[in-house]
């Protein structure tokens, strides 16, 4: 083993993990596009089913967009650990000498970049569909920008716990949806506050605090859950 090796630190290992996650998304685009399509289609059903009354639509818009975003995130979680569990890559991830905490963070962040971020970027368009006034677009996007990564991290805990089961979809929803309620309440609250001309900095700060909490604690829970799942 005299060959010189270019040794890497933790950061480079994280970048490699992130790169792999993005490559996987490019190679199997269905995993990324389907939740996004669900988000668009489910929201566009509301004006069709609920009538074209703009006052009514704009009053339900914050809740509808946030609930649908939450469900779309849960749908997208299914692909997070599934293929790695089936082909054994997960075992190698757990046996890697690099810190598991950061590897999981890189993986979830990569997953958010391809599933969560498009939701954030598309949301004003869907707001338009629900007759949401223009002054609420920015609060909606900011709220989703802080909220979707939190939902991803919470969903990843549930996914890590259920990845060993063959049909985990409904169980995942039962486990994870109750935990996502605070994010939903404050996220929709931000948009409602903007609609009523109330200050929203406090609500955004709470969403930020929840993200910070999830960033620091969720990877530990995900790691522990993955160890149980491969056992």
């Amino acid at each position, binding site marked *: *083993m005299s*060959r010189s*090796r*270019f*040794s*890497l*630190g933790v950061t*480079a*290992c994280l*970048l*490699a*993990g992130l*790169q*792999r996650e993005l*490559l*996987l998304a490019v*190679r*199997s685009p269905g995993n990324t596009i389907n939740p996004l399509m669900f988000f668009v289609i489910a929201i566009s059903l509301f004006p069709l089913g609920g009538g074209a009354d703009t006052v009514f639509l704009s009053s339900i818009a914050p809740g509808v967009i946030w609930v649908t975003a939450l469900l779309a995130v849960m749908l997208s979680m299914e692909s997070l650990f599934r*293929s*790695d569990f*089936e*082909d*054994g*890559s997960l*075992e*190698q*991830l*757990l*046996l*890697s*000498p*690099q*810190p598991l905490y950061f*590897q999981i963070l890189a993986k979830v962040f990569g997953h958010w970049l391809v599933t969560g971020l498009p939701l954030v970027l598309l949301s004003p368009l869907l707001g338009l569909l629900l007759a949401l006034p223009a002054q609420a677009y920015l609060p909606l996007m900011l709220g989703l920008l802080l909220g979707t990564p939190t939902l991803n991290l919470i969903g990843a805990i549930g996914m890590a716990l259920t990845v060993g089961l063959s049909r985990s979809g409904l169980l995942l929803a039962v486990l994870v949806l109750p935990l996502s309620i605070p994010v939903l309440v404050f996220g929709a609250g931000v948009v409602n506050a903007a609609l009523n001309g109330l200050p929203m900095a406090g609500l955004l700060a709470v969403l930020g605090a929840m993200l910070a909490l999830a960033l620091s604690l969720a990877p530990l829970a995900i790691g522990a859950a993955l*160890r149980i799942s*491969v*056992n």
Partner: protein
Amino acid sequence: MFSATNLFCERDERVLFTQLNFTISAGEVIQVQGANGSGKTSLLRILAGLNADFTGDISWQGQAVNRRRETFNAGLFYLGHSPAINKTLTPLQNLRWYCACHGFSDDTAIVLALADLGLAGYEHIPCHQMSAGQQRRVSLARLQLSVAPLWILDEPFTALDKQGVADLEQCIDTKVRQGGAVILTTHHALQLQCPVRVINLDELQGVGA
């Protein structure tokens, strides 16, 4: 180098092994034998730290493994039943990620390792377009990239052709000569130049029953 003391494992109310003790030092090979379902894979997964359903102590260089997981992981190469190869990615992408997980980046070494296993020219082909044996070889290319002193190999000869088997045996021999230690299971008659110690799980089960 690596030792297990008083291992006991029970699965579905059936004792797989009890009072299992062994030590492996540099330059040794241990073959775990036993009938199907006798707990070979369970034992290897316990040793690698993937399975926690056991009692007993496992230590690496004199220290308990569960206290120093990352140090142990740096010294371990584990090859499981599943190849740990993502089929939508190319061999190069798969192995790059593996290398990065182990803290290095060396594309030349990856290409060389693939060429050694007869996969020159396949670096950029998605793994799902390859045969089972070729996918297995991609997985085995990690052996050549690994600098870990301890190898734990679960059925490494599966799906390999005759030449592949001979190459892998040679690879194990070289590892052992360089001071590595190898624990493996196989149903194939090993033809190694180095001496092989055998742990037979069928006999151990008798002790416990």
